[in-house]
């Protein structure tokens, strides 16, 4: 996806939730999108499936998926050809993602039945197979969501996301509502699935440790923009953007005397973002140019890029 912007209309003016975002998810790889709450992670992901709310101010850019330009497709084409078939999603707040009055099995196979008109028995077979794959017993097919534990519900939702064998799965904080041991089980399940199914994943999280466990590449977002991308190892070991550096320093470490640092200041108001680099009011290395001109994505070597004047000058 390149140069994608999504502004929401509000009473105070348009909110620049996603601003000129460039992001690439290579086939079979997992890309982690990290950043603080409200930095546009979820907004970025809903652009791909065009699950937009009503209060859209601007929605521009290009989204290329498997050789097709999604921005040129009509809403009904997106619905019938892209959603779930090609791109599925595991939503934030898994506990409310299931309809309380429909049996979970029926919810899992519903896209098969409705979109592909698959017969009931065949759909059930495929549903149960996906449930087994995600570690659910076949009996759970006939259960209602309230009869399942949080971890089982999340497995149901993952089974549901895989039912149409999509090429890309967007995981929006898939584990944030779960306790730590269940979280670990789900992360292992996701790793297995990625390997077995050759899935591409877009993993959205504010938890850098979890993200690094699963993802090959990182994209760090700040205030509606991607500020740094690169191989997971590179970004973690040698962050090139001051925000990434600060973000990593804020993670508490086991068996270490290093006190987690916090980033002074608060994320900017996206109705009226600061000029130039959006991080400059909080940046420890701020220079004159930072508040005047917006930096480009400067390459810093080996596929790593940083949106920072420290890594390049006006000539690139």
């Amino acid at each position, binding site marked *: 996806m390149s140069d994608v912007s999504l502004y929401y209309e509000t009473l105070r003016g348009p909110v620049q939730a996603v601003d000129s975002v460039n992001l690439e998810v290579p086939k079979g790889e997992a890309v982690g999108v990290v950043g603080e709450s409200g930095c546009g992670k979820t907004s970025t992901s809903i652009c791909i*499936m065009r*699950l937009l709310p009503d209060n859209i101010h601007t929605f521009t850019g290009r989204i290329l998926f498997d050789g097709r330009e999604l921005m040129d497709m009509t809403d009904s084409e997106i*619905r*019938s050809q*892209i*959603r*779930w*078939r090609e791109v*599925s*999603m595991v*939503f934030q*707040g898994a506990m*409310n*993602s*299931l*309809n*309380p*009055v*429909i049996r979970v099995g029926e919810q899992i196979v*519903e*896209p098969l039945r*409705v*979109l592909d008109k698959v017969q009931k028995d065949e759909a059930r077979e495929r549903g149960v197979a996906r449930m087994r794959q995600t570690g659910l017993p076949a009996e759970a097919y006939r259960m*209602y969501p*309230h009869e399942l534990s949080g971890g089982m519900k999340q497995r149901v*939702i993952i089974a*549901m996301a895989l039912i149409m064998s999509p090429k890309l799965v967007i995981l929006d904080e898939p584990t944030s509502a779960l306790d730590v041991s269940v979280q670990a089980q789900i992360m292992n399940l996701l790793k297995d699935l990625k390997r077995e199914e050759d899935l591409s994943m877009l993993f959205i999280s504010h938890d850098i440790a979890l993200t690094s466990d699963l993802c090959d590449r990182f994209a760090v977002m700040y205030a509606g923009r991607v500020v740094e991308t690169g191989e997971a190892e590179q970004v973690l070991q040698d962050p090139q953007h001051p925000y990434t550096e600060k973000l990593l320093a804020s993670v508490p470490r086991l068996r270490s005397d290093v006190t987690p640092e916090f980033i002074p200041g608060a994320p900017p108001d996206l109705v009226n973002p600061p000029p130039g680099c959006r991080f400059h009011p909080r940046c420890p290395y701020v220079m004159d140019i930072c508040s005047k001109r917006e930096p480009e994505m400067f390459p810093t070597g080996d596929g790593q890029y940083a949106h920072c004047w420290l890594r390049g000058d006006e000539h690139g």
Partner: protein
Amino acid sequence: MGLARSLLIKAISLFAVLMIVMGIIVVILGFSGYSDRLLNAIVTQQTNAFALSLPEGTLPEARAQMIADYETTLTEAYGLNVPWWGRLPSMVWRVLSLDLGEARTAQSYAGSKNINAIILERLPNTILLITSAIVISVIIGLFVGIKAATVPGSILDRVTSYFSAVSYAMPTWWIGIIFILVLAVMLRWFPTGLMYSAPPPEDPLMRFLDVLWHAALPIGALTLGLSGIYIYQTRTVVLNTAQEDFVSVARAKGLPENIVRRRYVLRVAAPPLLTNVILGLAGSISGAILTETVFRWPGMGLLYYNAIFTADEGIIVGLTFMFTLVYVVARFVLEVLYVALDPRVRY
């Protein structure tokens, strides 16, 4: 198994509600001395009638003796020789076995004083008026409420929100008075009250149309006053459900909008909506006391109103029992429907 047991527990607790309501009415009527005064008045009235009916020329002593005997018999028959709580068990038992007794002043058209007969005669009138008004209001409420919730903030949504607020605020009897004033008195399009013209038309079809003509204003007033409530309740429930995460998930799954609305919004919103409808219908049996009174419509509400003003204890107790019974039955029906509609309510 667990299901039958929980429904049984519900049934028992609802029966307890019925008993408690009965107890409260009878205790209030007895404790306040209302019941004693009423019965004494009946005894005096009947004794006087008896005295007048005695043949001329009876000796004064014999006459006084016969009257005194008659009075004692009556006092014992009505249970006035024991305190009011002594009459309580037999009264509750009579009412529970649906023997509502005799009315004091109210009569059926045929002149019967049997309360069962009077209620059964009035019930269809109330159903015709109030129940049809509620059914119309519910249909309008569901239809318009769902439409308004589909595009919140649209012109339709805003117009209906204003209408609901106004409809909520205006009492139906007041709308009724305005209707009578404008449409019946000033424009003379509709009758001012009652159920039939005098004399009623002979032809059954004409008779039916005559009733409809008389029912038009009260039904209109009730619908205007009630539909706003149903519209607003429907809109709120549907809108709340439409904002649930699982609705977004359903859209993300690529399901067509009509399936999303049916299976994920309306299906989930159905139980609370059904509660409003069933309780509204159950309440309609009790009639709208003020609306029926304003239009002098011979239904349950007017019967209740007159019973209170003529101190007709039997009717008051009998009607209150009936209303509670209908409510309790409706609650039980709701419990059963909930089990069918919402898998979470299977205890």
